[in-house]
């Protein structure tokens, strides 16, 4: 995403592109681990959806269908909260990558 120079910015910190944080892919912050969704173990309790701090649980129709890796930061809360003995979300290793998010 090209960043504006100080001359290009709207005065007074005003952002006329409200809602543009959707462009900030927080999934790039993930390092080391990512959640894996195992559909056959899912009891559709929606705990993961409720607890996810980044709204990264993918819901289609009225069912949990997986993880939106664009915004998943890999915090692991979904996996901890997942109630079935055979968890529907487990954390698995992910190859390390350089963060390229909102900071220079």
């Amino acid at each position, binding site marked *: 995403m090209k*960043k*504006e*120079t*100080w*001359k290009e*910015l*709207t*005065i*007074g*910190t*005003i*952002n*006329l592109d*409200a*809602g543009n944080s959707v462009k900030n892919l927080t999934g790039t912050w993930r390092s080391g681990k990512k959640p894996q969704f195992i559909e056959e173990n899912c009891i559709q309790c929606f705990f993961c959806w409720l607890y996810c701090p980044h709204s990264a649980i993918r819901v289609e129709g009225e069912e949990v269908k997986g993880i939106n890796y664009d915004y998943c930061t890999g915090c692991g809360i979904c996996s901890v909260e997942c109630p079935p003995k055979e968890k529907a979300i487990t954390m698995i290793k992910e190859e390390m990558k350089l963060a390229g998010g*909102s*900071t*220079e």
Partner: protein
Amino acid sequence: MSTLKTLNGNQSIAEAVRQIDPDVMAAYPITPSTAIVETIAKFKADGLIAGEFVCPESEHSAMSVCIGASSAGGRVMTATASQGLALMWEMLYIAAGLRLPIVAAIANRSLSAPINIHGDHSDTIGARDSGWIQIYSENCQEAYDNFIQAFRIGEDLKVRTPVLVGLDGFIISHSMEVIQVEDDDEVKKFIGEYKNVFPVLDTSRKMTVGPIDFTDYYFEHKRNQIEGIENAPPVIEAVGKEFGLKFGREYGFFEEYRMDDAELCIVVMSSAAGTCKDAVDELRSEGKRIGLLKPRIFRPFAHQKIAEALKKMKAIAVLDRSSSPGAFGAPLFTEVRSALYDYAERPKIVNYVYGLGGRDIKVEHFKEVGLKLEKIAETGKVEEIYGYINLRE
């Protein structure tokens, strides 16, 4: 037709507020600015103003109300002093960062401790780096005139920066003076209609105001903010000239008094400049070639113009009504001294702190300064680069 009215400084500000009738006025009373708020409240109760008058629970909230109202799209003012301005501190920076042209009248008063209600510039000079334009007034007439011009300057589309107008606590705020009050209609015409820039209440546009900036945008937004106050000088000049054409009293960045052939100069702001003029007259009658330069605008500081006016002097004394503990001289001094640095031949320059907590400064004190300057000019030697006036040593 203007009319002559006998008003004190606070009433002069309130009179300008009545004529301008801002959309929102939010203020919390504090000595010595209380009478501004009190008089506005009375105007509101008497149906003389249409704008909303809000009484919040503190100065912090008063400035917060101003920020909200200004963001919403209104013309906004407040008044305070001393601890009240100090309590507004974090909101002052936010008002400037959001480029909201709020106008504040400040009845300059010292800061605690020790607690003291009298006049000095510690409050507004302390707010020096908050990003507000700062205008200082010598008397009630100037307080009235400056307050009216402040709206035009701050609201200019290239400036869009909050403005504070200082009037010395008690010395001006509570002293009666006969001032020229211009016609309501003429003042309204001079100020003009308020022009909105991205008002939050415009629901046709979706936008975010004051979002969080990290290392990627904060610097650019700050630079963008600085541009506003740096655009102010030509506007301050044009508004001051237009005010002069319309009402007969012209204003610039500073006033020069008997500076034509001066070799010695005293630089002092606000009410003390009035006393200094008498001292200059007396010293002139004794044959001393001395003048006065009274800065009116402290932010943005007109460094080039002031340096140009002072560069031919042999000796200069800058008098500060505030101190900057541990600094190399008080704030006005460091500005003036720095402004002169680029000249190969620089005048000798000294600094005196005076009048903290309302301590008197009299004609005789200015005359003593004048004699010290004469000695410095003669010998080319500066014995003390900064000192204090009328302090028990």
